[in-house]
């Protein structure tokens, strides 16, 4: 019965701890992800600066995974080089050790206070900023409460001979011990959890700090495994960074295991109680590993470029969005915007700009149909992704950004549809043997010019978030509205002048202009959305 209580207490504590770290990372991310992203871009111009920004980012976000997702995004958009990104990744490994340092402070007895105040703020205060602060307090409380539960449930284990024997056997086999720690860290997605369990064993006199070294090394390497698994569906930059992270941790662990007897002596010289010595050793390992890797970074980056060659740009447009990034809404929104900009550019270059060529018989309708089909498929993919993202707990500004993206995506899809309807209407000219007047044709081309310009301005406004361009674009709308009235008026007058009574001519002409005006309207909607007129 007591054994069951130990097991339940242990897993309950571990669960609370893991949930606390997850909650803390999410809450910090809501506040800081966009700021840290901007900071990473600004600060990481030198390798050593990259390391410091990696330490800071991981400590403030409380997650090396979130840091690596932000870095993957920056490398993919060519804001950071691979070598700079590697610097941040090894910095993030040191950042994780700071978390363990903080967690080894014995403040578990105050954990319930954190939980109480956190719960009060979360439940009773409606303001989102305060709510988030409440969640941070609550998560800190959960983390320390989880640690205290793990520690107290491990305590009776010291009187169980078979468990002690098993633990002694495992700890006597350093490679096996490191391997098991690696598996557990991969399973919990947290090296800190495994190291803190180890410290609980030390606190209860089951193990010593020296014996725990393989566990520290294994846990450190294991925390990179989930990143590798999730990178399999990522871009090549994501894969490179994930493999680098594992290589960094794993090779360091192997190196330290080779010199294990020396390490066992060194840990004894570190200050503090055995628990603190473990935390210090964890930091020391990552700092030394960093110092070894730092001069090698350009070489390693070269090697990675060799082993992961750049894929040639695919000839067919394809949406590249990764579900793993949904956990970091800030980054997911940036990725979604990037894909929507790509889609809007495709609409502009392969559809709108080809309409004059199409009218002159230099571009085939089937090409436009093909592009429209790509737009439809991409629209569905991006919309699904955004809707999934919307199910996350977004901040107000993230939610606002998502609404804007959904609006713009919808307008882009409608532009594609209108282009096809325009093609259908234009094809009626030859099918019904209709001859449009020279002036009508030149006015359609003039209207096309205004549409192309409006669309191009909207795209620039959206891509660069340039409200000035958006505003000027919208303000020019009254001119096109009047131009629409003028060309229709002149069309009717030209029919009367020619004494033409065929109603098909007007029907086709007006259908063509109406479809073009639909394209114009949706292009304008994009500018409106950029301004926040939603």
């Amino acid at each position: 019965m007591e054994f069951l209580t130990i097991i339940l207490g242990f897993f309950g504590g571990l669960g609370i701890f893991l949930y606390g770290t997850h909650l803390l990372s999410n809450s910090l991310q809501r506040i800081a992800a966009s700021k840290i992203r901007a900071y990473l871009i600004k600060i990481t111009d030198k390798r050593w600066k990259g390391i410091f920004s990696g330490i800071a980012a991981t400590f403030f976000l409380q997650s090396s995974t979130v840091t690596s997702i932000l870095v993957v995004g920056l490398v993919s958009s060519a804001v950071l080089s691979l070598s700079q990104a590697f610097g941040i990744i090894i910095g993030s490994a040191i950042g994780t050790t700071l978390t363990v340092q903080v967690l080894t402070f014995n403040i578990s007895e105050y954990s319930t206070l954190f939980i109480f105040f956190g719960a009060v703020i979360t439940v009773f205060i409606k303001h989102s900023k305060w709510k988030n602060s409440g969640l941070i307090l609550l998560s800190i409380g959960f983390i320390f409460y989880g640690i205290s539960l793990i520690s107290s449930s491990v305590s009776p284990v010291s009187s169980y001979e078979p468990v002690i024997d098993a633990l002694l056997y495992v700890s006597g086999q350093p490679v096996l011990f490191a391997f098991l720690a690696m598996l557990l860290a991969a399973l919990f997605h947290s090296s800190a959890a495994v190291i803190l369990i180890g410290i609980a064993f030390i606190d209860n006199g089951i193990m010593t700090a020296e014996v725990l070294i393989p566990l520290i090394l294994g846990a450190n390497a294991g925390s990179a495994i989930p990143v590798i698994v999730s990178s399999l569906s990522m871009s090549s930059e994501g894969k490179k960074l994930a493999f680098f992270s594992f290589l960094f941790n794993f090779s360091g662990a192997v190196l330290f295991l080779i010199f294990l007897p020396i390490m066992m002596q060194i840990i004894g010289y570190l200050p503090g109680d055995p628990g603190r010595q473990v935390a210090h050793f964890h930091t020391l390992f990552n700092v030394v590993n960093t110092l070894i890797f730092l001069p090698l970074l350009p070489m390693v980056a070269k090697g990675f470029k060799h082993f992961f060659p750049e894929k040639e740009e695919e000839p067919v447009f394809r949406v590249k969005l990764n579900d793993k990034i949904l956990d970091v809404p800030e980054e997911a929104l940036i990725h979604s915007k990037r894909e929507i900009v790509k889609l809007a550019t495709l609409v502009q270059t392969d559809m709108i700009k080809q309409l004059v060529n199409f009218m002159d018989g230099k571009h085939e309708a089937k090409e436009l149909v093909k592009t429209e089909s790509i737009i439809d498929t991409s629209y569905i993919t991006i919309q699904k992704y955004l809707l999934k993202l919307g199910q996350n707990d977004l901040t107000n500004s993230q939610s606002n950004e998502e609404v804007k993206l959904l609006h713009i995506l919808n307008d882009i899809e409608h532009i594609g549809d209108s282009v096809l309807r325009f093609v259908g209407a234009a094809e009626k000219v030859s099918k019904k043997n209709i001859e449009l007047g020279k002036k009508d044709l030149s006015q359609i081309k003039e209207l096309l010019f205004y549409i192309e310009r409006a669309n191009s301005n909207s795209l620039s406004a959206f891509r660069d978030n340039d409200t000035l361009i958006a505003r000027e674009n919208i303000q020019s709308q009254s001119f096109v509205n009047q131009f629409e009235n003028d060309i229709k008026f002149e069309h009717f007058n030209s029919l009367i002048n020619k004494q033409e009574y065929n109603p098909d001519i007007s029907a086709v002409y007006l259908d063509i202009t109406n479809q073009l005006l639909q394209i114009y309207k949706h292009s304008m909607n994009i500018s409106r959305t950029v301004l926040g007129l939603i």
Partner: protein
Amino acid sequence: MLSRENYYATKRKEIKSLTLSIIDHLLNMTNYYTDFLNDPSDKQREHILKAENSVDQIERKIESYILEIISLQQLNMKEIKWLFSMNRIIRDLERIGDQLTNIITISEVQDVEELKPLIRKFFVYEQKMMHWLMDGMKNDEINVLNQVILHDQHVNKLNKDTYQMLVSHIEVEKKITESKLKMIVISRFLERIGDHLVNCSKKYKETIRTVEKEASDIPER
């Protein structure tokens, strides 16, 4: 050949013509007041009040037109500026109507003889200013509108002279009568009329300048 009539263009014309009709009403009010000075009766007073009522009604009508147009049609900045300026102009014109009503309200039959020379002098200048404002607006002529603005100095001088004359009078007589007090108030009202006319001219001048400045704003290929 077909011809067409644009709703906005029609309403715009109507707004301008209604605004000009307000100035016309105001001119009539000054004439009615001159008649009142010659024949101070309730009937004459009634004319002025009726004209003021018409000014108010037209002002409200223009205001509703402006709101209606803004809600119906997407306008360019130049047109929006024009509408806003007209809105400001009719406010100023309506205030002139109020000032004239105030003057007639405080003018008693027994004061008429004393007020007559003062008011006539003001009206000579202000009626000219009203005519210029009307012509300047009708033909979009900046030079004519400038005359309104320049002429205001005469109105201001008249007001200042009235004050000085009254101060000298008080120094000699060592007292101030009710009719003299009314003279100060009326002089101030008449001076304000000049200011409102200047505001209208300045505002309308701006709209003409905007048109000239933004004539090149038509998007070019």
